């Protein structure tokens, strides 16, 4: 019975006006940008500048696409979908949503100073955190799905969408959500202002490390995720094989979640100013 109420408490945490607004905006962002771009440039198809154009906008997206063996038509729907889905949906919406929601579950209660009510309930702490974590993963997946589907609809149109890359991306999103949420929840239980730390990790590291030469990719979570949903065939010599990707992602999910539960059960959460 108490789990139902914890669930409702967690959902209410996420539906705070500011957080809900961010979620809606991020869900619509890729679709809108894709649509605007589609309208702007639908009429200007210049095939012969393919490499220059890729080089200009989003170097890492171009890296992925260029490395893919079958260089598909640069101006085809696939070309634009790859660019926007990689840059906007995965690198932006999924990661930001995971970060905002995961850090919210504890920061919200601490800031409201209502955490002492939860922690003095006869419910084991790991159950409280697990329920909240599940809600966060579900919410992140939902928002990212919506943004991915919107982008797909805009780029491919309703008829071709099923045959395009979108279903594969849709399948990968939950795993990505699980991995990132586990990581950020673990961060949030340990550090006070995890949001800032997370932002630095996301924009300071994840977004550009994959375009570095050599094996730096191995350190970026997103690289493994992209391998699971390759846009175009993978070159044989790629450092990350799908099997390795699965192993690493599962480890991150398990260790992250268990770590968060362990920390939350051991650590003391007392609002700062009343520690008199």
């Amino acid at each position, binding site marked *: 019975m108490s789990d139902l109420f914890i669930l409702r408490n967690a959902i209410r945490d996420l539906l705070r006006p500011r957080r809900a607004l961010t979620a809606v905006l991020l869900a619509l962002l890729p679709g809108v940008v894709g649509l605007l771009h589609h309208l702007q*440039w639908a009429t200007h198809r210049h095939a012969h500048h393919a490499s220059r154009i890729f080089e200009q906008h989003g170097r890492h997206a171009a890296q992925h696409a260029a490395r893919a063996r079958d260089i598909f038509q640069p101006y085809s729907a696939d070309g634009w979908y790859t660019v926007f889905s990689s840059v906007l949906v995965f690198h932006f919406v999924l990661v930001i949503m995971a970060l905002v929601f995961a850090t919210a579950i504890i920061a919200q209660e601490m800031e409201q100073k209502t955490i002492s009510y939860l922690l003095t309930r006869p419910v084991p702490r790991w159950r409280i955190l697990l329920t909240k974590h599940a809600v966060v993963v579900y919410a992140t997946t939902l928002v990212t799905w919506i943004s991915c589907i919107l982008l797909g609809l805009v780029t491919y149109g309703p008829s071709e969408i099923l045959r395009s890359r979108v279903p594969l991306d849709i399948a990968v999103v939950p795993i990505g959500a699980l991995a990132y949420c586990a990581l950020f929840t673990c961060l949030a239980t340990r550090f006070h202002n995890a949001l800032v730390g997370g932002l630095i990790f996301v924009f300071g590291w994840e977004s550009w490390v994959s375009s570095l030469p050599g094996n730096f990719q191995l350190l970026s979570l997103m690289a493994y995720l992209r391998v699971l949903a390759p846009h175009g065939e993978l070159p044989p010599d790629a450092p990350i094989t799908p099997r390795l990707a699965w192993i690493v992602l599962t480890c991150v999910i398990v260790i992250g979640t268990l770590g968060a539960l362990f920390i939350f059960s051991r650590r003391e959460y007392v609002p700062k100013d009343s520690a008199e």
Partner: protein
Amino acid sequence: MTEGPRNSVATPISDLTYRDYDGPLLSRRLRWWSVTAGGLRTLWRLDLRAIAFWICAVLCTGPYLILGFFLWITSTVAGGNSRAFMGSAPGVRFAMLFYFALRLQHLFLFVVALIAGAGSVSADNKANALIVYLAKPITKMDYLLGKWANIFIVVFGAALVPALMLYLYCLAGYTSEGFLRDDPWLILRIVAVSAIAASVHASLVLGFSAWCRTPRTASAVYSAVYWGAWSIAFALTLRTPDEDMTAAQSLVAHLSISGVFIGLAQNIYRVTPSRFLNADFPTPPPWHVLSVVAVVLVLGGIAAARARIRAVEVIRG
């Protein structure tokens, strides 16, 4: 009989307990200035924010110094001729130097505005300081005007001072080559551009600061909006270099916050689109369109801040 030192009160022991204040009082018209002065003083202390501010202010002078240095190097090598550096493409004049420096500088200008203004109202919200302000004989507009002027002066200084340094250097070194003849009103254009940039930044930072609870969220939101708009405008105008933008696309390209005042700068400096140091500048929308957008941003920011500060619930029942 010489009088011993007499204090103002008849009895030898004066009463040091509480006494009333009946000294001079300034008129209320200048009250906004004390709010501004209070804000400016916080930048003189040795705390993290002040140090970060001065570092960024120095970085703001970077682009102008670099351009001045290159100008000096190429002109000495080519026997004192400034054309060597600026290239002989038609329409390229000294104003291009200042315009190009502003394009490089707008990131640091943004950071300066953030440091100066993000905490202006939000820190007050967090520390509940509005009760102290509005319990005093000042109106909401005094408070807002004071805070706005504080950010404006800081950003205006950070934009104008480096430009003046370069201007004086050119005045000293290149009047023989027609620096003054080329554009006698250049100094006024520099002041105008710096003022526009400062007022746009001041209003927007003030608006976001009023609507956010803490300085950190205010700076996060403003950065997201500023760079979000810039990257979306950039993403939407991807095209091949030799292809011209239609007027509509050029408007879209300038619809980010930085786009507005950089576009206006290009109009004010009257710099026609041409190649300078292999960078190309899209032709900006006409100045009256951009100035309307700028005015909307400036007034919108202040109105948003004013709407947020209501005296009634300042003292919660």
